[in-house]
């Protein structure tokens, strides 16, 4: 009775709301689960338009830590995985969740620190020795602490230095539980040393007076790999489109595009693509 016109209005509004939502039914895209370092550095903003122009495929990147990216891909929420933690990637493939892993590119990690350099490690090439000095002097060190590729690499290095840094958590060892950028913001804010991938560091806009303290050790090598999520595990995976993206990344053209991405005249990623390199 009285309510009829109101109900009619509500229903028509509801219908129009639903209609506006179903507009995004364009299926010509893939989802890539990747890391914050590749996104924060701006690499994808440079690469993806080139790929889309050639293939007509839109690439949607979800940038999270490597651990989270692998978990999301395990749930089937992605078609391609592009991360940097070799052992986790290999496990992903052996578990049948991904089809063969390929090297794509590499860069390296660096340890950045304040100019006061409380642990006196500036200019050191030996990363293990540098970490031992940080622990010795109990200089503040900010860790990602988020199960990301960078975090896993950092933990491997502490192990190599034979130091149980995690036991000092909350004292000189500070786990931020955040992405690379957030950890850099926190670390620079409290005068801590931070291990970061070089790409994120170069692109980072809030360096303050921080400088690279440790670089050039072969153990700081940072390899990125790409994996197609296994359509046998998740039937909705867009395998053809995903594979063409991977093929393009590994092609001459894709590798050249990676190499040509520069910030402040510095190359951030070094292509070393080889198919099925795992």
């Amino acid at each position, binding site marked *: *009775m*009285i*309510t009829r016109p*109101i109900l009619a209005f*509500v229903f028509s*509004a*509801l219908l129009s*709301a639903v209609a*506006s*939502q179903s507009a*995004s039914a364009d299926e010509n895209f893939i*989802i890539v689960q990747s890391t*914050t370092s590749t*996104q*924060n550095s701006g690499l*994808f*903003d440079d690469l993806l338009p080139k790929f889309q122009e050639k293939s007509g495929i839109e690439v*949607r*990147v*979800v*940038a999270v830590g490597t651990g989270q990216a692998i978990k*999301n891909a395990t*749930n*089937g*929420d992605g078609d391609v995985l592009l991360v940097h933690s070799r052992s986790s990637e290999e496990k992903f493939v052996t578990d049948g969740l991904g089809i063969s892993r390929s090297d794509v590119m590499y860069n390296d990690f660096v340890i950045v620190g304040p100019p006061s350099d409380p642990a006196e490690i500036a200019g050191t090439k030996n990363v293990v020795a540098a970490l031992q000095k940080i622990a010795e002097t109990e200089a503040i060190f900010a860790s990602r602490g988020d199960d990301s590729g960078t975090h896993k690499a950092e933990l491997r290095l502490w192990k190599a230095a034979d130091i149980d840094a995690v036991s000092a958590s909350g004292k000189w060892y500070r786990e931020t539980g*955040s*992405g*690379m*950028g*957030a950890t*850099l*913001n926190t670390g620079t804010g409290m005068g801590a040393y931070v291990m970061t991938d070089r790409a994120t560091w170069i*692109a*980072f*806009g*809030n*360096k303050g007076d921080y400088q690279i303290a440790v670089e050039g050790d072969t153990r700081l090598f940072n390899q990125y790999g790409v994996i197609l999520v296994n359509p046998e595990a*998740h039937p*909705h995976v867009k395998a053809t489109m995903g594979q063409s993206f991977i093929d393009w990344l590994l092609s001459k053209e894709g590798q050249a595009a990676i190499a040509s991405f520069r910030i402040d005249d510095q190359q951030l990623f070094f292509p070393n693509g080889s198919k099925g390199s795992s």
Partner: protein
Amino acid sequence: MSSFWDALAGSFGLVIALDPDLMEIIGLSMRVTLTAVFLACLIGLPLGAAAGTFRFPGRTLLSVVLNALMGLPPVVVGLFVYLLLSASGPLGPLRLLYTPTAMIIAQMVIVTPIVAALTRQVVEDFNSEYAEQFASMGVGPLDRLMSLLWDGRYSLLTVALAGFGRAVAEVGAVIIVGGNINHVTRVMTTTIALETSKGNLQLAMALGIVLLTIAFVVNACVMGLRATAVRSAYA
């Protein structure tokens, strides 16, 4: 201090330049938030009104639950909606994860309890005034509900604004279920989070000021509308 003023100037620069990317982000923010708030009102208004009007078993419990849900952490909602919409989740086949629709759902889950709980309070006050008259007239339950909502419309506008404020400022849930994908699910708040993580603090701050301005304009428009309507209805 200077960086703050730089940010302020930067935000004006961004808006004046009508940067197409920024306009797209603002547009998506508004579309997601307004749709979510609209749907939340569609559920929350009748639900809250029912809790404020009718006596039924579990009514007090419902009120307590609604009030408690007002404090729901967005990240928890984000996770919940992610698990629901994930390809391995119960609603996976709908393929909604990493779409604006997923963000709308998450914001709706966050805002609906706020709208319902505040509506309950407003309607309860009106009901205590109207209940006897309605009973005397023999007004049916549905008409009672609609009449209370209609007569409380100016107070309920503020309720909707509270929901809008919460939704438009929300980042934790939408970044999980939306994925902050450029040109697809990137909204104001996730852009601010991204620029902060890139260390572009001034740009992030400038975007924050833009967001604040939009929220201010929306509030001012609604309150202005309300003031005019109230004046013509009561003066």
